Structure formats: structure tokens, C-alpha cells
């Protein structure tokens, strides 16, 4: 080899998508490491990471679906409610003697129906996605409550054994004070979530549909002129989101083992926050599933840090989530503005320049 460094040399500057994703990943590691050094305790153990994954596997899945829709320039706020509807439907189905395979099909089916109907209304009848999915949200929430107001616990033997199955990694565990060895445990839902992330990455990067979604989000008019079937592409993006909401619902049930009308309340908002922190732009055309994964993890980490610092009340988590979202959006707009040399950073600069000038003038006038 003539140039051994060639491997490490990038030919092209990072794209916006890659840049924002990198920023999220770096900030996640900085946050986690500072938690390890600053708070120690639970953060020292690998178990902490696995718990974060176990608790958030369904959020990761819906956030991935939402990322696909958002890259295409749309929005889907029905995902949390659909997840909740799937949880309740499946638990009732199982408790009335349904099979596991049947419940999985039911979960996928509900998600698909929501995706298809919403996608159809949005792409072919050209109704605002926000309105359509808001209707979907209310509909799914309402249906969940109709199915059962009371919490329903799974009484299905086989399902309970299945959901109890965990991958145990002993050497990553730790020894508790009483001498018991506590292994690190990974739920099956995490495996599903990781597979979903990988599949979405492949779809977005290596399949025609994925690139068409980026093109559509980048410039819809151009996408049309380039010969892309924009309507079908948009439709399919919502179908993917719906399907992933279905999967997310099943994973949620595997995690909690019970259905509740208030399940996954506000999950759509956390999913949007995850996608945005992960570098997906609301305007479309930029974003990635890996970024969204780290977006979810960052959000969880900051919440764990807040709890570990002794601020136990749930509103503190909401406040930090809000603050973090704000921080990331500002950071993104500054970084992207710097690259293109205009946009917000230009405006911010111009604002300060004017401010300084007017102060100078006043000084001159006074002297």
C-alpha cells in the first residue's frame, strides 16, 4: 500500500446527516462518562446500560418509524396511542386463549391498518399529516379505553414464560453487597429493537425506497421531476411507521406484561424528541436511525442523571427533557448555519453586529 493512512482519510466532508449523528453520539458518550465519573454508583455497572435498553426498547422502535416519516418531511403523532392500543388488544387476546403467534399477527395487523389508513389519507387525499395522525391518536386512545378501563395483567402461561426469557451475561454483572452475583440481563425486546434499528438503517441507506424518502424530504418538487412516485413513497413511509408502532406495542407488552389505558402516554412526544436529538430535521431530508437510537439513549441518560442527583420528582425529568431538546435544536441550527454560511447563525451574527453598532453610536454621541 502506498498510503497507509488512506483508509482513515475521508474523501468528502460529512453530510448534514452524518454530522448531526456524530454530534449526538459524541454528546451521549460525554454525558455518560461524566455521569460515571461524577455520580459513580449505578453508572459504573454495565447493568445500567442494559436497564436503559430494556426500559426503552419500544421507544427506540417507534422513534425509528417516526424518523423515517420525518426524513420524508412528514410527522406521525399517533405512534404512542397505537402502541397503547396494541398492548391492550394483545393482552386481552392472550387472556381469552389466543395463541402467541396470533397475538403477534394481531399487533402487526393493528399497526399496519393504522399505517395504511393514515398513509392513504395523507398521501393520496393530501390531508395535513399532523391533523390525520392527531385523529389517529385520539381514535387509538379512545379504542384502548373502550377495550378496558381497568388494567389487564397477562394470564397467558406461555406468553409469560416467553417474556420472562432474558439473555443473561454473567461476567458483565456485579456482586451485590450480600454476596449474590447479579448478572446483566437483556430482554428479548432489546434484540427486536436492535434488529429494527439495523433494518431501518439498511432500508434508508441501501434501498431505493430509502433514498426516495430522503429525496422527497429534501425537495418534494424536485423528487417529482426526477421521476419518483412521491405519493407512493410518502404512503409507504407512514406504513413503515405504523408497522413499527405495532411491533413497539408488542415489545412494550413483553416488557410490562400488562395492558393499561394510560400505557405509553406521551410516548409520541418522547419519540419526536429522540428523533430530533438524534439529528433528524423537522423540515425533512436529514436524519438517521442510528442517530435516533443515540437520541433515545441520550434522553434516557439525562433523565437517569437527574434522578441520580436526587431530583426524584417526575417534573424534573420533563424540564430537563425540554432543556435538552432546546439545546440540541439551537446546536443544530448553529452548526448547519455555520456550514451554509447563512440561516440562523447569520441572523444571530447580524443581530449582534447591529447591537454593537448601535452601542458604539450611542457612545460616540455621548462623548
Amino acid at each position, binding site marked *: 500500500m502506498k498510503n497507509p493512512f488512506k483508509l482513515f482519510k475521508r*474523501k468528502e466532508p460529512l*453530510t448534514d446527516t452524518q454530522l448531526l449523528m456524530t454530534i449526538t453520539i459524541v454528546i451521549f458518550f460525554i454525558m455518560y462518562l461524566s455521569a460515571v465519573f461524577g455520580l459513580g454508583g449505578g453508572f459504573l455497572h454495565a447493568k445500567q446500560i442494559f436497564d436503559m435498553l430494556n426500559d426503552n426498547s419500544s421507544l427506540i422502535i417507534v422513534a425509528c418509524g417516526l424518523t423515517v416519516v420525518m426524513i420524508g418531511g412528514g410527522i406521525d403523532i399517533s405512534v404512542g396511542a397505537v402502541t397503547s392500543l396494541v398492548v391492550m388488544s394483545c393482552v386481552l387476546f392472550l387472556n381469552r386463549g389466543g395463541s402467541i403467534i396470533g397475538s403477534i399477527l394481531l399487533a402487526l395487523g393493528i399497526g399496519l391498518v393504522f399505517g395504511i389508513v393514515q398513509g392513504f389519507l395523507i398521501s393520496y387525499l393530501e390531508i395535513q399529516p399532523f391533523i390525520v395522525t392527531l385523529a389517529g391518536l385520539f381514535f387509538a386512545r379512545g379504542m384502548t379505553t373502550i377495550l378496558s378501563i381497568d388494567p389487564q395483567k397477562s394470564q397467558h402461561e406461555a406468553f409469560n414464560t416467553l417474556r420472562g426469557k432474558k439473555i443473561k451475561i454473567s461476567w458483565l454483572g456485579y456482586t451485590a453487597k450480600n454476596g449474590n452475583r447479579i448478572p446483566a440481563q437483556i430482554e428479548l425486546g432489546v434484540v427486536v429493537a436492535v434488529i429494527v434499528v439495523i433494518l431501518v438503517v439498511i432500508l434508508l441507506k441501501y434501498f*431505493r425506497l430509502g433514498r426516495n424518502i430522503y*429525496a422527497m424530504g429534501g425537495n418534494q418538487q424536485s423528487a417529482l421531476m426526477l*421521476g419518483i412516485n412521491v405519493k407512493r413513497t410518502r404512503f409507504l413511509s407512514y406504513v413503515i411507521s405504523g408497522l413499527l408502532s405495532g411491533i413497539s406495542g408488542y415489545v412494550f407488552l413483553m416488557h410490562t406484561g400488562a395492558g393499561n389505558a394510560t400505557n405509553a402516554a406521551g410516548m409520541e412526544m418522547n419519540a419526536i424528541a429522540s428523533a430530533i436529538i438524534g439529528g433528524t430535521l423537522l423540515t425533512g431530508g436529514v436524519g438517521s436511525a442510528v442517530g435516533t437510537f443515540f437520541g433515545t439513549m441520550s434522553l434516557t441518560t439525562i433523565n437517569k442523571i437527574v434522578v441520580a442527583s436526587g431530583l426524584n420528582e417526575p417534573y424534573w425529568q420533563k424540564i430537563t427533557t425540554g432543556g435538552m431538546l432546546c439545546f440540541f435544536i439551537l446546536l443544530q441550527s448553529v452548526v448547519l448555519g455555520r456550514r451554509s454560511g447563512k440561516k440562523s447563525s447569520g441572523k444571530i451574527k447580524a443581530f449582534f453586529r447591529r447591537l454593537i453598532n448601535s452601542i458604539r453610536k450611542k457612545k460616540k454621541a455621548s462623548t
Partner: protein
Amino acid sequence: MQEECLLTMRQIDKKFPGVHALNNVDFTLRKGEIHALMGENGAGKSTLIKVLTGVYPMDGGEIKLEGQRVLIHSPQDAQNAGISTVYQEITLCPNLTVAENMFIGRSGVVIRRKEYEKRADEILSRLGIPARSTQLLGKCSLAIQQMVAIARAVDMKCKVLILDEPTSSLDDKEVQMLFSLMRDLKSQGVGIIFVTHFLEQVYEVSDRITVLRNGELVGEYLTEELPQVQLVSRMIGKELEELSNLGETEEKQDEEKEVFYEAKNLSSSDALPFDFTIRKGEVNGFTGLLGSGRSESVRAIFGADKVTGGTVTIKDKRVKITRPVEAMRNGIGYLAEDRKRDGIIAELSVRENIILALQVMNGVFKPISRSESEAFADEYIKVLNIKTASRETPVGSLSGGNQQKVILARWLLTHPDYLILDEPTRGIDVGTKLEIQKLVLKLAEEGMSITFISSEVEEMLRTCSRLIVMRDRHIVGELTGNDLNQTQVMKTIAGGEA
């Protein structure tokens, strides 16, 4: 020399409600030629292009490609038939790479990135386009983006390449790059239709010119056989011989009146620096072909575009005009070129539209009372003879000419000292046109200064006592007195050499 006909359009007919956009137009494109399509605004150039690319269905006529009749119903059909279009505004995706932009919309289910990048690099280097396939398109200059669009068309084996105003956002060097690419494609047998309003570029690069006017074919000419001044007269619509016989006998008042407005080196984001003065009671005009910078100049005077430099004096006092409201406070009114976009608010009533500018000048805290505004509206409806059911009728339901009068009333109500009228007579009937011209002269007699812009030179000659001629964004001449005739105007527009 008998060249092979690549594309023939015969007796193309296209009607829009109220407008006969294309009337039996023929167009022939030969293999390996650059064919300029010329015409003023509304001549039917873009309609012809849109019929050819399937954006509009045609009402009559036929299109033959290499002798075969083709039916084109959508842009997709046109692309498949080998007709590719590169539009003025780039129709590619800025967030994808160059290679992706070249292959998206026609790739397989799985993206074979490496293969596409290799093929894209081959085409780019073959066409001499200085771009890498892995570059993000949004990071390339506009010229490169346009060339990538052309490269995409070339790779799709296009036979006919339509370039719609490709040079309007490029600088000189980029234009040269584009031209050498065009010549290259021409030598490979591609037929290129070049739509532009830059005369010099037409003469630099094209082999043949087709001129349209008012939706009708004026003629097809070899570029070398058609002098520039002839081309201009064909576009505007008067034969030169006929013109020189026209005796212009109008009183030109050229007394030394006081200067009302003077600009030195005024420039804006869209207009190059220029000097301009207007006296009290004078009617002058900016003339030039579309895109010559006539509208941009008056927009700079009014502060409608971002003013970037120059000094302005009004009645011997230095003033700063950077926003329309400042111009209005200094007694300047501006009737915009595009009345749909810049002028009328269709949902509001005649009355509300009329008092709009006065209200803006008074500010929000000094509302005009209902009875006052009704009186104003009634007065101007009568004075200007606005045909409306009542003063509360929405302006949108009025005819074009009456809408124009409403906007005129709006400005007259502010009692400006200086009124700029940009194409006030476009798209309105002859009767109203004359009324507006008479009104302009009457207002000037009363002491108002007026700048008048119109695509119709005749109309300008009737009303203006001084004409400022622009070409390619520069002022190339000022005509007064005996020079105010059509021959002289056209000579100046075309660049002197007759």
C-alpha cells in the same frame, strides 16, 4: 445543407380560459443544433415548452420525434421519449450526492452505490464537469448543479434537451462553462432548445432562432442571417421599414423644471448601480427587453428590494430609502408589475384595497374612519370610472383592468409626488389602456412626476418625454426629443449596430 429533423411540432394549439396561448405554432429542431426560442413575456415560449414536456395537454397539433408521432401526457412520458428539460430553478435534491441525483428515480430496488458513483464519474469527466460523484449536491455551485442536471439528461440518452433560462443565475465564467458543454453535446448530435432573454448569449451560442409573439409563430431564422435589431423588432412586433415611416409628432415638454428625485449610483440586491433623475411633472420611462433590469431599477428606487448603495436626494434633500414605507413617506408610490402577487388583495373589498396604502402611511394607531374610507372609495370609483357592483365588492371578482384602476386609486389617495407604474397596462383591454395613459398625462400636467414601464414601446412613446433604455442590466442610452421613435429605441435596445 439538409439536416436531419429531430423534432417537429406542427400546428400546436393551446387555449387557456380567455387566452389563446398558442395559435398554430410550428417548431422544428434538427439534429445537432442549438435552437434559441425567443419572445417577449406572454409570447408563448414557456407554454410551448410545457406542451412539449407534457406539463400541459395540447388542444391541437402533433409532435413527431425522429419521424414518429409521439403522445406525451406527463413529464415522465417526455423523459422516456428522450426529451429532457433543465429548468431555471434547479430540480434536483440538495441533500443527496451528485451520483444519487443522477440515478434516483430510475434505479433498481437496491441501490448499488459504488456502481452508480463509478458511472457518474465517467459521465462527469466525459462532459468535463468539474464535480465528484460523491459530493453533496447542495455544496456545489448553481452552475455545477445545472450541469449535473444536464449530465443526468445525457445519461438518460436524451435526444432533445430543453434549457429553460439556464443562464439567468450564473456569472460570466459559469455561462462560458455551460456554453462549452452545450457545444459539446451539439457535436454528439443532441438537439438543444435554448430559452433565454439574453440577446448576446443567443448570438454567441445558437445556430437558429425561432421567434414567437402573442402565441403565434413569427418565423424561424438562421442566427447569422438575422441581425440583432431585426430580432428585437420581430420580438416586439414592428417591421423596421414600417417603423421609419411612422412620424412621431408629439409635444415634448422639456422645460427646465425643478428636479424632484435624483439617485446616484443607486444599487440593490437585484439592480446594478445606476444614476437617475426625474423632474416635477415629467413622465419618463424605463425600456428594454424582459430581464434587462428595468423593473429591478424602479424597485430599487422604491426600496422594494434590498438597497445596497448609492445616494438619493429628493427636492435637494438627502434621504435614505431602504424600505417601501420610507419611500411612501417621501411621496413615492409604486404600482407593482405583478398585480396578483404584489398588488391586490383579492379577498378584500374595493374600498379596503383603496385605503390600504393610506392606512399604512398613517400607521396602525390612526385608523381611517368608516365614513371617511367610504367617501374616498366612492370618489375614486367615480374619477377612475372603476366598473364594480359596489364599493364592498371583493376586488378578486373585478376584471383585470378594473383591478388595476383600484391599485392606481390606492396610490393616488396617498397623493404622491412621484408615482412609479410598472407595467400598469399588461393584460388589460385596449379601452382601459388608453384611459390609463390619458390619466398618466393628466396627472403629470398637475405636477406629479411619473415613471412608466411597459413592454409595448408604442405606449411608452405616447406617454413619456424621456426614455431610459436598458440592456443586460445596464443603462445603454437615454432618448429625448427627436430620438423618441421606435427605430431609435429598437436600435438602442439591440445595441446600436443595425
